């Protein structure tokens, strides 16, 4: 596999994304809304005297899970543009006629969705951590973030969830004819992750480092399985003759 060809495809997609305002706004606005919105919620709760920051520390950890949800949501949007966008513009045929393997193209497409999503998530998470620390440090007497829980969130669970979403979107892209439909179906991938957050909120599970390691252990084989399914879907002949 020639990784430089995959990267050529990835950077081409980046150039296309730069022209799509909705993609840029999504990459900036969604993580920023989480990064600033959730600390604002914490500040309001403390201001009303309902709780102290010390009592809210489990919630601070749980809020970090929104960045896992963010990676799933954002990568859905990017993967739809990257793959279904090529379908809509009918640019896959000349691309497939080049001396590039199916795996090189697929890797290029996966990276095109993965890299901006993770970059945006990490930036958003940095703003989130800094904001929460700025608000809570005077009360707690120490910096709550970074900690092991958010490290597992950002460095393990979020990339694995992002990969899961991108691979699922490759499979979805083979079955739909337009970007909006792909995004609608892709949006369904967010549901199990949102469900986990709800379970944590109703105290059925705890989203601590251990729970995230278990989630990651489930995502690893799921990613491997989806990799083989998406690779089987992303074959030249299937793309040209079976993709809708």
């Amino acid at each position, binding site marked *: 596999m020639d990784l430089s*060809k995959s990267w050529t495809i990835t950077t081409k997609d980046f150039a*296309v994304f730069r022209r799509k305002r909705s993609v840029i706004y999504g990459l900036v606005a969604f993580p920023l809304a989480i990064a600033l919105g959730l600390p604002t919620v914490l500040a309001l709760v403390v201001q009303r005297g309902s709780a102290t920051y010390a009592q809210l520390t489990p919630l601070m950890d749980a809020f970090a899970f929104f960045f896992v949800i963010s990676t799933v949501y954002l990568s859905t949007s990017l993967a739809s543009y990257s793959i279904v966008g090529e379908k809509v513009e009918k640019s896959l045929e*000349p691309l*497939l006629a080049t*001396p590039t393997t199916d795996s090189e193209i697929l890797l290029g497409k996966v990276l095109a969705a993965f890299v901006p999503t993770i970059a945006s998530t990490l930036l958003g998470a940095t703003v989130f951590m800094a904001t929460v620390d700025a608000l809570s440090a005077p009360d707690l007497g120490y910096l709550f973030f970074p900690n092991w829980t958010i490290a597992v969130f950002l460095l393990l669970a979020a990339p694995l969830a992002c990969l899961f979403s991108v691979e699922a979107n490759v499979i979805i892209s083979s079955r739909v004819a337009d970007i909006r439909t792909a995004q609608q179906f892709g949006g369904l991938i967010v549901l199990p992750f949102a469900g986990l957050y709800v379970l944590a909120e109703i105290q059925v599970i705890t989203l601590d480092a251990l729970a995230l390691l278990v989630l990651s252990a489930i995502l690893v084989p799921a990613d491997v399985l989806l990799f083989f399914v998406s690779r089987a879907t992303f074959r*030249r002949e299937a793309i*040209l003759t079976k993709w809708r």
Partner: protein
Amino acid sequence: MPRLGWRPRPTIEADHLTKRFGELTAVDDLSFRVEEGEIFGLLGPNGAGKTTAVRLLTCLVSTTSGTARIGGYEVGNGADAMRIRRMIGLVPDNVGLYEDLSAYRNLDFYGRLYERPERERREAIERLLKMLGVWAQRDLLVGTFSKGMKQKIAIARAMVHDPRVLFLDEPTANLDPEAAKTVRDFILELKSEGRTIFLNTHNLDEAQRICDRIGILRTRLVTVGTPAELEDSVWGQKTTILLVEATEPVRRAVESLPLRKVVWEGNRLTVDVTDAARENPTIVAAIVGAGGRVQFVSSLRPTLEDVYLKYVR
């Protein structure tokens, strides 16, 4: 000087090539050869299998049976497929350009995938865009271009790695006459550089003007030959002569000649001939000898449209 009996190696060779999609046979038992430097045109109605034939030959879809070779490499063989892709350029029926990228960026992207070094890539892009008259628009987004300009960019894209063999699927469809002429002239220029061109087209006039040989496909290849050979296969040559007056002595003089078929329509005489250059002077001499006066003589040949309709109906 070529050796005695030397023949150029066929650049494209298909042998009993067949493609089925489930119950549907898209291409059936396709066999032909295209020599190096030749323009080969494939004509056929919609659904005849032309696009599938191109996809088979460009290693985009697998064969059901039969074999094909491009430049000696076997289509369908994994390692050879990569060599074939480096050797060929493809202009599909949909241009498939990235509308949010500039013309230059589109070509540069493909140049990178074909592993052309940066300097060669830059020079190739400049040369191609200048040849096609779109160099001034190189930094504009392709989405702002007309159909004709997009088609030119698609052709430049297929040429960015300097391929020996070019596959063009309906390259002038939906173009205005001026843009179509630019594309045709460019194709002829590529031929003059010794490149082999495989052209799918609906445009009979275009096929007649630029193709060395033409195949007519209706799932199966029903006939193949040079435009002249195909035209002759319909009803050969005819000569039409307009007289001032078709008098009885003139009619008798013409009918006394050993001609295959003579048809009179008023003062117009149409005769089937085998060799017009040899037979026309004899016919005119007989007419004049019988006191007739000739207004004009012209050769009447079947058109490619006659050929096409004969084979596809």
